[in-house]
């Protein structure tokens, strides 16, 4: 990697190959649909979430529940209770925020094998504004007992994650982006729970999730030329968290920066901080949305405005280095 532009605009975002996670989700569902046990539900957003691809091929196993997300989750739980494998999709704001109590009781407490796959997570929803920009979902879902939480970095990893969810038995939530996101993986390899070491390093560790994984790679590459050896870890599983690798890198580098397109409260940064403070107290700096609602604007304008770009990560690393010195 040699692109040292640290903001998405004007050029960085166009200089990288980008692919759609939700399209990858839709296509993989169609493939998995050969298994008669797979059923898919949506709440009037199927052409956006791309579950419509499944719906077009397997009409009898696709249920559009209309704009009634609570009922969708409750019905999915009922379907799961009979041995079917339901994937229920909507936008992240509805699938987790509006549906929280249904996910809690009908899915998690009941331990039903429901896969909630939400698109339009985070600020990259863009022009629709804060009502649709879900930045609390990882926290809401991670706080639920029995829940597994997945946040893939790109489209190829999404494919692997969907295949994993199909095999996995138990409640699970996966968040995807509306935008086409930069590709960091050559293939669909998804490793459950394991933090993926994309780049090793001795001085600083960045643990990133979703779209911020690519930003972390750019930041690390830039800092390499400044003489800083930065490790980049992809946290595509948020829960259960890979404590072992987190602690390995806390010991190795003594400074971890977490980066996520999510509120800095209750997301990846909080999880990592908890693990580190309980086991190997050292510096963790959280990079994410600074406990504020988003707003309208193009996806990448927003990401730059809220510093969810390589520059934001570099700044946090500088901050972390100062703190570590003390």
């Amino acid at each position, binding site marked *: 990697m040699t692109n040292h532009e640290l903001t998405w605009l004007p050029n960085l975002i166009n200089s990288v190959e980008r692919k759609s996670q939700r399209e990858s989700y839709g296509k993989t569902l169609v493939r998995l649909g050969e298994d008669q046990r797979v059923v898919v539900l949506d709440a009037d957003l199927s052409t956006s979430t791309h579950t419509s691809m499944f719906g077009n091929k397997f009409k009898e196993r696709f*249920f559009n529940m209309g704009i009634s997300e*609570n009922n969708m989750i*409750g019905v999915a739980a*009922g379907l799961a*209770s009979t*041995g*079917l494998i339901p994937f229920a999709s909507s936008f992240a704001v509805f699938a987790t925020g509006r549906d929280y109590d249904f996910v809690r009781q*009908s899915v998690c407490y*009941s331990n039903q094998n429901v896969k909630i796959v939400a698109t339009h997570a985070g600020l990259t929803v863009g022009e629709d504004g804060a009502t649709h920009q879900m930045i609390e979902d990882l926290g809401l879902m991670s706080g639920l007992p029995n829940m597994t939480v997945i946040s893939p970095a790109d489209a190829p990893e999404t494919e692997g994650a969907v295949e994993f969810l199909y095999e996995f038995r138990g409640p699970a939530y996966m968040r995807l982006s509306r935008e086409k996101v930069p590709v960091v993986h050559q293939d669909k390899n998804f490793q459950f729970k394991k933090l993926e070491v994309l780049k090793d390093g001795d001085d600083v560790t960045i643990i990133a999730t979703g779209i911020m994984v690519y930003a972390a790679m750019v930041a690390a590459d830039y800092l390499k030329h400044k003489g800083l050896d930065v490790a980049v870890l992809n946290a595509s599983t948020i829960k259960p968290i890979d404590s072992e690798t987190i602690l390995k890198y806390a010991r190795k580098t003594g400074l971890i920066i977490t980066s996520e397109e999510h509120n800095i409260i209750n997301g990846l940064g909080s999880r990592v901080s908890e693990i580190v403070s309980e086991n190997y107290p050292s510096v963790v700096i959280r990079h994410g949305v600074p406990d504020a609602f988003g707003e309208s604007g193009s996806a990448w304008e927003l990401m730059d405005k809220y510093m969810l770009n390589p520059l934001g990560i570099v700044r946090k690393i500088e901050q972390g280095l100062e703190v570590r010195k003390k």
Partner: protein
Amino acid sequence: MEQLGDISLLKDKAKEIRKLILLMTFNAKSGHPGGSLSATDIITYLYFRELRIDPKRPDWDDRDRFVLSKGHASPALYAALALRGFFPVEKLFTFRKINSELQGHVVNHIPGVDATGGSLGQGLSNAIGMALSGLIRKKDYRVFAMIGDGESQEGSIWEAAMSAAHYKLSNLIVFLDRNMIQLDGFTENIMSLGDLEMKFSSFGWKTRTINGHDFYEIHDAVEWAKEEIGPKMIIAKTVKGKGVSFMENNPEYHGKPVPNQELLNKAIEEIERE
């Protein structure tokens, strides 16, 4: 239509369940006897006459399902399950106690409990999922459910109602326990529900109103429901606290057991005398 025949067994079982409801909640010093007693006769009918179930195989795929969406009526369901052989009757006296399987509100981890209930307005959706599954897998099991009248103030009940009609779920038979009382008082004072039969009917359900304490009427309604196309809503007019004079139609006993031994004895006597 199949005749109901002798109802003495059903009457006996209902009495036993009512006594157990009083004892379980008294023993637990908490729980919801009022709405359990109003639901008792319907639950008795289903478990001792209608449901195709096997206590030895609670997860049998072809079984009929019963979803108690008003999950606070757990004592009625637990008592029916115990008497039906899903677990020992003695276990009922661990209800709401530490380390017991019998949680305050129904949960699907318990043998024979098909869905979790507690936070209202979810069970009907769960039942719809089970019914849809039966449809696409070409299973001939039926899905029965019971919702409360207070519960019908939840918006999600109406989301669910819409979808059951949309998917033409002929294998779904739901009872609405119309006991007219919720925690804070009488439903029509708290948030009026009005004509629930007309509401469900306009949502596309086949509907019927019955006396929810009359086994003949329950039987006729279930036989009717099995023949009709589409989802069925049986509005069962019931009495909260049914069977115990001082509990009947008394909002105080929504979520409170009989307070002392003397009243407990009196309540049990009344039920036995019935």
